[in-house]
């Protein structure tokens, strides 16, 4: 028996979520009195692979196969299923991100394994196996029983802390046969922003809404974000107006995030916006309207005009950080 965790890497390095997943998988393995095994697909060197061992993983299965250079959901599903069977995995854990959302449901059908998607904490019980997941776009949570022998969990990003536990992990290099004629998805081009903090990875997010009044007013907001090492985001009207790119849109139909700290600046807080950010640990709201719904979701608030408050906030951060 084992708990299998599917990790993700980019440019030979693990994404932060891989360590979150490893920490989570190790805790689930503890609950089941078994070990966590990590699967890495890609060109990742041994010293990087061993980092997974710092988060409680006992064994790392490493697959480096050219045919898997690009993501083909069907081919990846076959590989994960093969490893799950080889490791007699009872629980398989993936991220609830773009990749995990594409792979986990295929895996669920392949292995006839129930899936708990968007889970945000450890299983509530292991017998019956019940997980806690987001429902109604953050307006409720569901206790969901996974009724099959093998279970799949996709973990909401930023919902689980990194837990360092050195476990002396071993690396097993494993080769798989991938039938190239079965690869139907061809990647023609990759357009990747570099040097920017990803909204879904960021611990602090600074977000602007219509109360910013014009795309020309974003400079102090970006400066605040830079000072805090934060990612920038925006509300739906702002991305619809084209003031900021749609990649920055946070909310129910945009990106759903759970940073430690979320600044909602000039955002009134429509239900759909709050649905996308309500899992943030702390929300700071800055708005001219004291009755704006965003103050109902925030722990800290300033009633005031973004264009006046932001420069003062930037100065305050400089002063405090400068000490």
């Amino acid at each position, binding site marked *: 028996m084992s708990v299998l965790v599917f990790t993700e890497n980019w440019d030979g390095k693990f994404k932060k979520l891989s360590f979150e997943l490893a920490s989570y998988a190790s805790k689930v393995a503890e609950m089941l009195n078994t070990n966590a095994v990590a699967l890495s697909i890609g060109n990742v060197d041994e010293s990087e692979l061993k980092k997974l061992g710092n988060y409680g993983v006992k064994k790392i299965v490493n697959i480096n196969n050219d045919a898997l250079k*690009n993501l*083909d*959901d*069907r081919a990846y599903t076959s590989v994960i299923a093969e490893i799950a069977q080889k490791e007699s995995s009872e629980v398989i854990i993936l991220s*609830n991100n*773009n*990749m995990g*959302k*594409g792979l*986990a*449901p*295929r895996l*669920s*059908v*392949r292995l006839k*394994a*129930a*899936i708990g*998607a*968007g889970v945000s904490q450890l299983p509530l019980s292991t017998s019956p196996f*019940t997980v806690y*997941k*987001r429902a*109604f*776009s953050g*307006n*409720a*949570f*569901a*206790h*969901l*029983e*996974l009724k099959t022998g093998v279970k799949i969990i996709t973990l909401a990003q930023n919902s689980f802390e990194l837990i360092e536990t050195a476990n002396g992990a071993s690396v097993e290099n494993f080769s798989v046969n991938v039938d190239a004629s079965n690869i*139907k*998805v*061809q990647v*023609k081009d*990759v*357009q990747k*922003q*570099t040097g920017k903090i990803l909204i879904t990875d960021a*611990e602090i997010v600074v977000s602007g809404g219509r109360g910013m009044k014009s795309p020309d007013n974003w400079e102090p907001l970006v400066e605040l974000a830079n000072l805090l090492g934060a990612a920038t985001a925006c509300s739906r009207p702002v991305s*619809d107006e084209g003031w900021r790119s*749609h990649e920055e849109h946070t909310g129910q*139909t945009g990106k759903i995030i759970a940073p430690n*700290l979320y600044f909602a600046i000039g955002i009134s807080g429509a239900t759909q916006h709050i649905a996308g950010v*309500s899992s943030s*640990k*702390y929300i*700071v709201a800055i708005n001219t309207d004291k009755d704006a719904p965003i103050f*109902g979701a925030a*722990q*800290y*608030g*300033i009633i005031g005009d973004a264009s*006046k408050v932001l420069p*003062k*906030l930037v100065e305050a*951060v400089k002063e*405090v950080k400068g000490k």
Partner: protein
Amino acid sequence: MKILVCISNVPDTTTKVKFVEGNTKLDTTGIQWVINPWDELSLTRALELKDDASTGVKSVSVAHVGSIAAEPTIRKALAIGADDAIRVNAEPADAYYVASQLAEVIKKEQFDIVICGIESSDFNGSTVGSMLSELLDYPSVSAVSSLKIENGQVVISREIDGGKEIVHVSTPFVAVVQKGIAKEPRIAAMRGIMMARTKPIKLYEPIAVEPLTQVVSFEMPKPRASCKFVDAENPKQLIELLQNEAKVI
């Protein structure tokens, strides 16, 4: 080329949800039901493709798994412009159940492109689309933010962490789409509403499928502590609170 858009019937996104029967069921009293927002955008994109003769898209159908109570939502999809609709007459038990019903219908009806929204706004599973592709053994592309047909070739933008990939995929396949796929959902015009009344809704009875999951109960989010206000003239106090009280910066 034939496109199928799978639609889910969900409470309007501004609904204040409440639960009944020991927090196991949604209280549907007074709920306004709508097409799931991502499915509405999918339908809009499918219709845009059909409007462009160069794509070779001949028809856009919609499919839904649900009881007769969902017919107004299906009619709305027809009013927006879908040519015809399919309804599998069953209460959706879980994602696997729904995907299995849809797969059965697609095997009979055959489509070149099947489009599903990334998630339904009620259960937030993000699972039906990819499950469907596996049941059909079709390729699938997830996190799709743009879908074009150029000289008969399907060209897709797929979101990855911090960027996007341009991918080609052969038909038939399943696209799981998200934000960006269409700018604004298309609105039904009066003519469309009139025409929708006579468009066909084909009825299928469900196949026997055992659901893999069961909701034990729902709970409401824990209420947050009330907001602490800081004077707009003194934002330094906010930074100090974030540093010393919340300890997040």
